[in-house]
């Protein structure tokens, strides 16, 4: 897809949740690669499996969830390690998590501990992974708070999470995630809970971090506008599968999968002229519990054919560096 070597390879990953209501196939066989210093945007609606994928990479799948198949290969300096094979509570995954890979979540209030100051929480992360003393860690934490644009970092160090606004808390989360110079940052809807003016600040910050620290980012969001302005490569997920994958420019200019096309046509845009009606996608997002044969999007797809209801399409090249899982394009040259 591009020149830089892979940092993370996900192969045929499946994650299932066994509950009283049945088996939810949250992630149903996905493959993708994140290269060094690239930003992969993952788009999808609620329940498409994008957050579960992120948690699987971090080794954070909890019962009743289980990785039932596949590999998550992290290319480390000392060799390749399969995260699926590590003990989820073992030393190695804990060294990777927070050290080489870090994650930030949508709701910064619930992901910070309310009874410790933000400074103490960053210091904890730094001392744990870098084995430096407390006073040195304190200095590093203050530097980080300054780096993410928190005014008066020395004073803010002693604040509790509730004393900060939502945008500030997300900055603290980013500071904590960046504390150990991770090579991969997983950002799960990091700006969704924020106002647009604050979202613009956080997006700007994340771009600066990539530039300054050479961090690769997996950016998960449902907002196509955010994807267009942040990502290098894009993967579109629907019902636990990747239905389309391409560079950001290619996918916005030439979307091939009917779901991607539908999404792009259904959102009103600031730069559009006034249209009387939006082109909506029919139907509803089905439950992951449903066991349906064929393509998951077929019930809502305006182009669905006989074969779509019987067989599941797989990702195939539709153009250079552009893949889609759709029978419409299979015969295409």
């Amino acid at each position, binding site marked *: 897809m591009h020149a830089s070597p892979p940092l993370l390879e996900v192969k045929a990953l499946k994650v299932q949740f066994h509950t009283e209501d049945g088996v939810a196939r949250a992630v149903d066989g996905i493959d993708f690669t994140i290269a060094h210093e690239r930003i992969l945007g993952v788009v999808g*609606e*609620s329940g498409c499996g994008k957050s579960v994928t992120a948690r699987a990479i971090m080794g954070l799948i909890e019962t009743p969830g289980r990785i039932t198949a596949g590999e998550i290969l992290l290319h480390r300096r000392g060799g390749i390690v399969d995260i699926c094979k590590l003990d989820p509570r073992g030393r190695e995954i804990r060294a990777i998590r927070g050290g080489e890979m870090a994650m930030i979540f949508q709701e910064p209030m619930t992901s910070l501990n309310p009874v410790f100051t933000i400074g103490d929480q960053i210091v904890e992360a730094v001392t744990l992974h870098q084995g430096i003393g407390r006073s040195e860690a304190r200095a590093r934490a203050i530097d980080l708070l300054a780096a993410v644009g928190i*005014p008066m970092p020395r004073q803010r160090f002693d604040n509790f999470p509730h004393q900060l*606004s*939502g*945008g*500030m808390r997300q900055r603290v989360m980013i500071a904590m995630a960046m504390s150990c110079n991770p090579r991969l940052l997983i950002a799960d809807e990091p700006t969704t809970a924020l*106002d*647009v*003016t*604050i*979202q*613009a*600040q956080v*997006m*700007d910050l994340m771009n600066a971090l990539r530039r300054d620290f050479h961090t690769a980012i997996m950016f998960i969001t*449902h*907002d*196509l*506008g*955010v*994807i*267009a*302005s942040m990502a290098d490569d894009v993967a579109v997920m629907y019902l636990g599968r990747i239905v389309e994958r391409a560079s*950001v*420019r290619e996918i*916005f*200019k030439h979307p091939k999968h009917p779901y991607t096309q*539908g*999404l*792009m046509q*259904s*959102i*009103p*845009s*600031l*730069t*559009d*002229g*006034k*249209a*009387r*009606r*939006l*082109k*909506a*996608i*029919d139907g*509803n*997002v089905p439950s992951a519990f449903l066991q349906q044969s064929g393509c998951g999007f077929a019930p809502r797809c305006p182009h669905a054919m006989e074969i779509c209801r019987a067989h599941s399409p797989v990702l195939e090249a539709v153009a250079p560096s552009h893949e889609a899982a759709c029978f419409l394009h299979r015969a295409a040259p």
Partner: protein
Amino acid sequence: MTTQETLLDIRALRKFFPVRKGALQRIVAQVKAVDGVDLSIRAGETLALVGESGCGKTTTGRTILRLIEPTSGEILFRSRSATGDIAGNMTDVATATPAQLRLLRRDMQIIFQDPYASLNPRMTIAEIVGEPLKIQGLVPSSEREARVLELLRAVGLGADQLRRYPHEFSGGQRQRIGIARALALKPQLVVADEPVSALDVSIQAQVINLLQDLQEAFGLTYLFIAHDLSVVKHIANRVAVMYLGRIVELAPTEELFGNPKHPYTEALMSAVPVADPDFKAERILLAGDVPSPVNPPTGCHFHPRCRYAQEICKTQTPTNRATSEQHFVTCHRADELSLRGVRAS
């Protein structure tokens, strides 16, 4: 589509929430959620109220329906049901008696943001949508179900869904149920408080289209409260921008987006990410967060974050004035600044 008749006229509306502290629960401060809002809505139009969280847009919407008691101000509404008691046959919602309020509610209804929290999980869809009819006693109970079914059909649901409970529906379907309930009494004004922001992207367009169809079919007037400017640009006839409890700019939609006059409007529009990788975003990054409405800045509330601020902005509160017949702005420098709107591609 738009007649010039004013349906709702809000004058100097204020809502302050007391901040209490200590053993005696003394009032130590006021949260000025709505701080002197003037707004009039014309029959048949969609007026959007936009702003960031905490700007007072939801409080304004709920105060109009007296779901929140206003601190001061007038909410004049031209109701068909409640008899007018002041000039022009308008009723002041702010001072209406409980009996008058009940009549007023036939003509003004609300659609809530969260379709998961706004439907009673123990009631069937028939009961939820039929409840306003039952309370108001407008339709005999024998005919109620037929009317409910008619409403459900209008929002794209069917007879097989009458006996089901909210948990059996998806978010988009629940929002349709909430819309059917709001329309049960054939209101004139519907306050739609972020009606699509909790929905999945692929469902939002369905609900936006539905709201537009219903407006045409029933001649509804919408106060559309939202933070998503792309949706607002699509649906609204006029837009009011709120910041810290005050309206800073009001104009017809095309005019506001093409030719903004307030620096906050300019910054807000520039911050919206556009779904086009070739779009050269020139985002205006506002410094800091929205200040606290307990202790808003002096002068113009926006001055600490404004890149055009001068001395006068720190000391004097700007007044709302017209820059053209339909365009109102609250900024000292509105005439001299040339601000950037949204370029159509």
